[in-house]
């Protein structure tokens, strides 16, 4: 009777018995059982990946947020500002704009505002005790009363020059100039020394993002500049606001209008372009932090691989038991691979949350609009899962290859 069912000859092969199987949902449960039973270790091994992902998401979020803040600022400053300067062409060193440039430019139909500054060749000091030559690169310029309006500038303190104050020695300080001269407020009458003359400071400006040169300048009225400090008539820079649709055509028109005799020696620039280029460029710090994030991720990957190798050695008994319960090599491999992916995915989720919170807190504190690029958050999660799979591959293979008899040997 027994011989009928137990036939040792190769021809008598009965239909193969059903193989063992592990449902996909149970692959997840089995893979999660290890991390669940050892929570402290799970948290620590996920930490490395979470730091890396947090760094990446945070850096990308912050650079996007600051970039959008910069673009907002450019939009609010207006992109229709054109500046006209002498220089350009061969031997441009000594060239200057004609005295009439401001007037002729102002006659162009598409120019809505025009303003100018003149170079004044005198030094400025905080007081008479500062040694000669220590000007801190602060320059004196003369400017008309339209300058702040034309540049959409703001005053931090005091007021700007008007027809009355421009006629006499009164100074308005650029933001950097004020700092370098050590002037932080105008609560009491404040004076600076221009060409050995005490000049009262009547205002301090906010930064001019579109004309950073003026941040380092002490501005006086044109009338006072000519009467007290021998300023010339040729403007150094002419600032123009142009009708929005006509920026390019006006730009082509400006050199000949400003200096019909030597148009090639006139340089016209659009300051907002430089800011836009700056916004588009990744700054070095962002790159550095991205690099650091990548290193943290690499270390996190190695950490997870390490933890998994240890887990496989430590849990030989479990591997042997599962083989005895009917697990195939593939089931064991899937279990440990899933476990590694769970560890790093936990780290990824934590990292994305930390990165988003950090971006939110910092951007809010800077008054920026919070921008978190979806590809950074999503990419962070995908990266974490890939990292887990890579880190878990070798330990999972080792676990699967372990012979059941060896695994069960205590």
């Amino acid at each position: 009777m027994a011989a009928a069912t137990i036939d040792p000859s190769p021809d008598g092969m009965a239909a193969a018995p059903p193989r063992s199987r592990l449902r996909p949902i149970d692959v997840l449960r089995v893979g999660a059982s290890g991390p669940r039973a050892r929570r402290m270790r799970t948290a620590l091994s996920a930490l490395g990946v979470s730091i890396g992902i947090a760094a990446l998401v945070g850096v990308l979020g912050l650079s996007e947020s600051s970039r959008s803040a910069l673009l907002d600022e450019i939009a609010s400053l207006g992109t229709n500002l054109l500046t006209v300067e002498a220089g350009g062409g061969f031997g441009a060193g000594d060239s200057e704009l004609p005295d009439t440039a401001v007037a002729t430019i102002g006659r162009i139909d598409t120019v809505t505002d025009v303003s100018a500054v003149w170079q004044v060749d005198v030094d400025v000091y905080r007081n008479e005790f500062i040694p000669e030559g220590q000007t801190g690169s602060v320059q004196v310029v003369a400017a008309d009363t339209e300058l702040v309006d034309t540049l959409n500038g703001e005053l931090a303190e005091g007021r700007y020059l008007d027809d009355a104050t421009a006629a006499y020695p009164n100074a308005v300080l650029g933001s950097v100039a004020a700092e370098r001269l050590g002037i932080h407020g105008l609560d009491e009458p404040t004076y600076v020394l221009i060409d050995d003359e005490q000049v009262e400071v009547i205002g301090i400006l906010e930064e001019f993002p579109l004309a950073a040169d003026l941040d380092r300048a002490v501005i006086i009225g044109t009338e006072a500049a000519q009467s007290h400090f021998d300023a010339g008539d040729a403007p150094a820079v002419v600032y123009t606001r142009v009708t929005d649709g006509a920026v390019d055509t006006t730009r082509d028109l400006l050199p000949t209008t400003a200096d019909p005799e030597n148009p090639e020696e006139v340089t016209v620039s659009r300051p907002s372009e430089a800011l836009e280029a700056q916004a588009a460029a990744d700054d070095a710090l962002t790159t550095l932090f991205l690099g650091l994030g990548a290193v943290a991720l690499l270390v996190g990957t190695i950490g997870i691989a390490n933890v998994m190798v240890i887990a496989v050695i430590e849990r030989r008994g479990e591997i042997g038991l599962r083989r005895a319960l009917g697990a195939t090599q593939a089931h064991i491999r899937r279990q440990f691979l899933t476990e590694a992916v769970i560890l790093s995915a936990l780290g990824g989720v934590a990292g994305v949350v930390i990165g988003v919170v950090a971006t939110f807190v910092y951007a809010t504190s800077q008054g920026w609009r919070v921008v978190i690029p979806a590809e950074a958050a999503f990419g962070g999660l995908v990266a974490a899962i890939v990292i887990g799979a890579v880190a878990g591959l070798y330990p999972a293979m080792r676990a699967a290859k372990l012979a059941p008899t060896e695994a069960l040997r205590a």
Partner: protein
Amino acid sequence: MTAALELRNVTKEYPGQPPVKALDDVSVRIEHGELVAVVGPSGSGKSTLLNVMGTLDRPTEGMVAIDGTDTAKLSDGAVAGVRSRNIGFVFQQFFLLPGMSAVDNVANGLIYQGVGMAERQARAADALERVGLGHRLGHEPNQLSGGERQRVAVARALVHKPAFVLADEPTGNLDSRSTAAVMQLIADLHAEGTTIVVITHDTEIAEALPRRVAVLDGRIQADSGTPFETVAGAATHPGTGGDGSRPDLEAV
């Protein structure tokens, strides 16, 4: 009727210089409903015999049939399938998974058959009830005594209603009181019809069981025989054990 477990002319050789023969032409047949002790000192080959009986290791030569299925020609996955359905293991070290409740540990005995979660849990609870731990379902291994842990392990070995349970030194890590309780449980399960093979070095434990197979130097030295055949027949043919009434099969 097919045997729960049949080994025929099984030899296991470990490579080396010279090769080590851990099992030498072993034949043994265990019927459904038997309670058998495989007894022998350490180094006798009984661990190898356990591994071969449990299909955890393949013999160099010979046939291992589990509940009528010859495992010699099966793939790793198919042998795993045989283990998942037909064999229950009880180990000296319990091998309960930490941080997992008793009922989940027992339910692991069904997971590789693709049984759904709810059914696994229900059957695991039944099995724990059967070993007298119905009140300990939610306890984790570190909240259980040694004897209770081994009873959980026994429940895990029973939960899928295997053809036989292989218990490897089941009382090796237990004090004498727990040993008595676990052996009583094994006797009770046997009385209910479960087929159990206990591998032990402890002759006292072996003496208490109805059939004893003594192993020494990789051979079956003595087999007290199944209740269905004469003890004398087996004893005079050491190494054949099993079924003396069919010499034609032994010639294969």
